[in-house]
């Protein structure tokens, strides 16, 4: 297979010398031209383009964007809201940061096309509190777009009006979960809502139908409106269309963000050819492919996978194509596109202790299994790292994790259980032997 080449659609201008975040630069590059054409079309046609495109959400769940839009309750007579999820809170993920900071008008154009397609009159961008500059950049960009009549009253001289406001979060991971986000936007604690009945498409913001989409998803909408749904669907692989931005961090030589056609690059190609392989003198040990909540993959494990055309294949970690379907067939997920790499210097007990500290800190506390379970998992792994490891701790961790997953209002339960379940399942020996290992281990980078 030839070396993979990036297909930069969303990142076309990002990191381009001289490309700035102001509207003049965007207009010089043809900006808002797609929106002008879109507004001349019927909204239903645009929804059809998005359906045909096969676009799947880039925020984590990979849910069909077109289907999400068709589920919106349009008969209720209530206003429809768009909420752009710019919380980017899944550890290992940093693509929305660059889309926002470096090309804010691409996002705003995507928002306005989405709003027109869905008859939205008010959109909010919920941006994490830790992006103060991102919030300022977006506010300035929206103001510029207002002055050019791309946003606000009587857009482009038509009867259509729609405004966009930026809403800053305040440091809580759970605000990335769409119903927690909605509660937060309503000025409350971000306790996720139970579904049913609170599907955002029906009972979302202010109990009105609401579309929640990730920043990257909305940026894709602009390009779908531009090239057409069919053309977009030809990019990538069947059921895994378009491009996506993979964020690589941890122990590789060239970490960073790279845009590829979905499923047209394998994990091995990404890590070796694009990211330059492991650091000198090291080998890869484990990789979390879709943000820290995704189940870990162990280098050396084998997967038997049914291929799309029906035949069976046996794969190593390196062979797995980076898409939604094959990653889940291998027991993990594409999630948010955050690829976290660990080399042979890492002890998996310590890595899990780091992850568990995150989830214990971030559990919102609404559901008992998650609130208590995430804390106990942290306590156990912290105790292990600080000299109190017992041979049976792996099983204990596993049993706590098993009692969280599937027993909570939102998917945070799974998000915090999956790391523990997969680490213990795949690296059980390291958990059993940790007390012994620790006595002789050379000092390495501390993770807790």
């Amino acid at each position, binding site marked *: 297979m030839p070396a993979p080449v990036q297909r930069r659609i969303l990142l076309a201008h990002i990191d381009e010398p001289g490309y700035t975040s102001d509207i003049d630069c965007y207009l010089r590059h043809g900006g808002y031209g797609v929106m002008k054409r879109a507004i001349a079309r019927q909204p239903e046609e645009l929804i059809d383009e998005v359906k045909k495109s096969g676009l799947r959400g880039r925020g984590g769940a990979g849910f069909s964007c077109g289907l999400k839009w068709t589920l919106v309750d349009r008969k209720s007579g209530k206003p429809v809201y768009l909420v752009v999820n710019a919380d980017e809170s899944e550890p290992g993920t*940093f693509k929305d940061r660059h889309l926002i900071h470096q090309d804010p008008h691409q996002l705003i154009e995507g928002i306005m096309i989405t709003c027109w397609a869905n008859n939205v009159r008010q959109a909010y961008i919920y941006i994490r509190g830790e992006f103060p500059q991102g919030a300022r950049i977006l506010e300035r960009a929206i103001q510029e777009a207002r002055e050019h009549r791309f946003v606000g009253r009587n857009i482009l001289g038509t009867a259509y009006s729609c405004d966009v406001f930026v809403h800053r979060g*305040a440091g*809580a991971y759970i605000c990335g979960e769409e119903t927690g986000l909605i509660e937060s936007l309503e000025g409350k*604690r971000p306790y996720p809502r139970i579904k049913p009945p609170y599907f955002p498409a029906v009972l979302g913001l202010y109990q009105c139908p609401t579309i929640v989409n990730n920043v990257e998803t909305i940026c894709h909408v602009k390009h779908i409106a531009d090239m057409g749904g069919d053309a977009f669907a030809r990019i990538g692989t069947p059921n895994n269309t378009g491009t996506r931005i993979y964020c*690589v*961090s*941890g122990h590789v030589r060239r*970490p960073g963000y790279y845009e590829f056609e979905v499923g047209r690059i394998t994990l091995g190609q990404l890590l070796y050819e694009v990211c330059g392989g492991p650091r000198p003198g090291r080998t890869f040990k484990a990789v979390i492919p879709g943000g820290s909540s995704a189940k870990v993959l162990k280098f050396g494990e084998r997967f038997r996978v049914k291929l799309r055309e029906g035949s069976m294949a046996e794969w190593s970690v390196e062979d797995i194509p980076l898409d939604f379907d094959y990653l889940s067939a291998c027991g993990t997920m594409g999630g948010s596109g*955050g690829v976290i790499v660990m080399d042979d210097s890492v002890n998996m007990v310590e890595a899990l202790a780091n992850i568990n500290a995150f989830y214990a800190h971030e559990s919102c506390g609404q559901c008992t299994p998650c609130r208590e379970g995430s804390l106990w998992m942290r306590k156990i792994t912290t105790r292990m790292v600080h000299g109190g490891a017992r041979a049976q701790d792996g099983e204990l961790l596993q049993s706590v994790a098993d009692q969280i997953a599937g027993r909570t209002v939102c998917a945070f339960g799974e998000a915090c259980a999956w790391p523990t379940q997969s680490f213990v399942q795949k690296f059980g020996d390291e958990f059993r032997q940790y007390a012994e290992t620790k006595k002789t281990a050379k000092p390495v980078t501390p993770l807790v």
Partner: protein
Amino acid sequence: MNLKPDTLRKIDEAITHYPVKRSAALPLLHLVQEDQGYLSDEAIEWIAARLELQPINLYELVTFYPMFRRHPIGRRHIRICRTLSCALTGGYPVFEEFRRQFGCDLNEVSADGEVTIEFVECLASCGSGPIVMIDDDLYENVDVAKARVLADKIKAEAAKRP
């Protein structure tokens, strides 16, 4: 409450962004905290009155969201990312270096009132870790040597202040 005219203007503006006043709770908490440095009882009660809410509706936010604080912090706010990708590339030694440089404990104000050091969760810049945020500015690939340079810069700026 003695808020700057610019803050008051932004507060009036923020409230117009929502059909329901309560939605402006987070924006107002941010604005008042930026103006005052922290959220006092008086500030919380003032915001509650402004939004026609009970103070408890604001206390429950301030005690939940990590970015809100009930006490003043140092003039400079140093936030170091603790989460996995940064830890893998050396976030913990960087954190220790900042503590050593300013001789202060986690979440406390240094004796000279200059800095507060916080260990925070993922700052969404994991590919260029370790990540440090000083006030609103992001610093990437901060190893121990770079941490010392940043600390020296903070100290030099403090010395210049009248």
